[in-house]
């Protein structure tokens, strides 16, 4: 017997609109419609494909960042891990002649290792995640320069470039991979004990320990996964560019946090969704594209994105306040 009344359709509808991600999605939709009207080139499948590919990389690391933020931490090394994994994968393929597929797997393992090290420092030595990941990020960026001396690594085997450059139908392969990762992460967060534990730790870490959650283990897992997602983004970018550019991953950190926050993830921990983050990343991607299509000076891009972030969190705050009443 169920003591609670079943939710009516109206309540469900209301609930839908009480979600940050729905609100942001509506904003995204309105933007797309307006752009279609103003600029006919926008809705062109090719253009849409380009947008998707562009934001896929940021979306991937933002998914890892979301996981870390939900657990109440922060990962400032995501861009650096992306770059480092990309470069080491390129070196393995080109300089050591390792099978490119094996190199990719090893590259992902390197990302996982970097993340695990972050997690170990944070949990075992009880260091602040902000400082730890700031430092490891600096080290990895430095190592990229040590390994490459600032020169790109040319001669990535053609056989694996389709991961970065290919399409399935109209959809670029990096976007397909990003969507797959999103679905997996949504499942992990919603359906597995690990996912539930991550929310619990972010919501109340002291209480989490007292209900028997192995907090350290879960946190290490969170940072390790963030490392894997970052290295996946970095390797895909490597294969997209066809060359091991030392700049891979530079400037990805802030957008990763921005996408998560636009999508409703709380910096206080305990709250956030994978789908929200992807919509947040998409919103930023569409904005960047709109700036090109509308021939606005590219110098304005950051101003506009900053303003959008402010607007998004203000709207979300208002919505939350309205909900409480």
């Amino acid at each position, binding site marked *: 017997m169920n003591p609670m*009344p079943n939710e009516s359709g109206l309540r469900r509808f209301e609930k839908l609109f009480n979600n940050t991600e729905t609100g942001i999605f509506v904003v995204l939709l309105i933007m797309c419609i307006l752009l279609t009207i103003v600029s006919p080139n926008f809705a062109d499948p090719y253009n849409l494909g380009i947008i998707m590919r562009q934001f896929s990389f940021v979306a991937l690391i933002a998914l890892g960042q979301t996981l870390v933020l939900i657990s109440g931490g922060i990962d400032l090394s995501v861009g650096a891990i992306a770059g480092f994994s990309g470069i080491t994968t390129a070196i393995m393929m080109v300089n050591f002649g390792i099978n490119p597929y094996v190199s990719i797997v090893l590259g992902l393992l390197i990302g996982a290792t970097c993340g695990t090290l972050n997690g170990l420092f944070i949990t075992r030595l009880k260091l602040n995640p902000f400082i730890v990941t700031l430092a490891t990020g600096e080290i990895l960026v430095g190592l990229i320069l040590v390994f490459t001396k600032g020169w790109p690594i040319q001669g990535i085997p053609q056989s694996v470039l389709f991961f970065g450059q290919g399409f399935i139908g109209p959809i670029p392969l990096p976007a397909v991979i990003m969507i797959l990762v999103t679905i997996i992460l949504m499942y992990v967060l919603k359906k597995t*004990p690990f996912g*539930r534990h991550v929310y619990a730790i972010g*919501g*109340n870490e002291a*209480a989490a*320990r*007292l209900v028997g959650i192995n907090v350290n283990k879960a946190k290490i897992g969170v940072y390790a996964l963030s490392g894997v997602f970052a290295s996946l983004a970095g390797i895909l970018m490597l294969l997209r560019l066809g060359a091991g550019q030392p700049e891979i991953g530079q400037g990805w950190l802030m957008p990763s946090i921005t996408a998560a926050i636009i999508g409703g993830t709380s910096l206080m921990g305990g709250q956030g969704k994978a789908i929200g983050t992807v919509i947040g990343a998409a919103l930023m991607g569409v904005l960047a594209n709109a700036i090109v299509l509308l021939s606005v000076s590219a110098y304005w891009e950051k101003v506009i994105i900053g303003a959008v972030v402010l607007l998004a969190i203000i709207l979300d705050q208002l919505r939350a306040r309205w909900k409480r009443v």
Partner: protein
Amino acid sequence: MVMRDINKSFPGVKALNHVNFQLDPGEIHAIVGENGAGKSTLVSTIMGLIQPDSGDIYIGDVKAVIDSPSKALSLGIGIVPQELNLVPQFTIAENIFLGSEICKAGVPWIDGKATQREAAKYLDKIGVKLDVNLKVGDLSVAYQQLVQIARALAFGAEILILDEPTACLTYHEAQILFKILDQLKEEGKSIVYISHHMEEIKQISSRVSVMRDGNLIATLKMSDTTIDEIINLMVGRAFTHQKKNRAAGPGGTCVLSVRHLTRQTEFREISFDLHEGQILGIAGLVGAGRTELVRAIFGETKPDGGEIYWYGSKVSVKSPKYAINLGIGYVSEERRKFGIFPISSIRENITMPLLSVLNRWTGIDQASEKSIAAQFIQSLKIKTSSAEKEIRLLSGGNQQKAILGRWLAKNVKVLILDEPTRGIDLNAKAEIHELIVKLADDGLAVIVISSELEEVINLSDQIMVMHQGAAKGFLNAQETTQEEILKVALG
């Protein structure tokens, strides 16, 4: 200072009930009462931390509205709180003048020399010889307290409030403090002194006010009263035995045995047995080591010595996870800090320790999860419109029921309840009491820590009374009285 007819209610509790309190110049006025009697509320009112619902405060002959701590300071009220509020990284001099920095004439530059000189003057006034350039963090608690007193004087305090000042002091340090307080009294300052230690109060105060259940029961001249009389007033009404004789009781299998459990500075040499169906009460004053003891049993902290036996075999409880796997559940006294996951749903809060059991290869079995949550919401009468509601939106009583449900769903063998009904309205409190007794009747072994003597006596079969980290005695709850417990608890 005179307080007239002060009233203050919190949801479900009448914290101050028509309190009249008078503080004369040049007296040390002690306030005593059990935990939760309203002492802290009264002090918070004087400090401007909370506003009374009604009633007036007069300083001298002038009616005062104390609407903020800074207002209290400007009225000449200084406090030495239990948790000292000094900045450890700053020097003594900087701390004394924090918030009233001495500046060079006309410019916002702190005058370091003058600060040091003035600070030294105030330390000298209370007879303390210390270099004012020492960092406060390097001082012992006793000296930090004196710095706090100097700070109050530097703010021009005429009224000084001390909340449990000797809790962390040695006997010798306390005597030094008393000498300083005596001297301040001679200078005409008024001192409000809150303490649990009867001997101290007898030694230094001129009058004592006794509080109970939000009422100020009596104000007595120290020379006219005895410690026994004060304790009787603290306990109050003749205690009625509403206790039912429970069918089940000690006699079941011994679940948990603790032998000589010790943890430096917290508790020492604690031994007891807990049987199926038994409710063991732990009484004692705040700071007696009750919470520290159960946290160690639950694996949250590591004891320095002693053993724990689970169904007769020795175990080393190295983490809460380990304790839970044995079959121990712990409900903390601080529900918000250690109990609930505020922005998670009631369902998720109940099933949190169950996830490994509910996990299938496809993930958490959400159908079973929902039905378990629904089952406990119903059986524990948790008042909510939906299991999906965020738990922070529930009342304290319903939150507490959900946390109890968490451990019942986990099917624990021992349930440790730390102040299970603190801050909970009377109705929910009665329901929780009923539930605890019913669970024990069904064979659950329960440990109940409570500062409410009535609660301990009513619920428990046996009561362990702790004082300063030691088990001072085991009393049979059927026969003991509040007076007896309090006497043991006061040492």
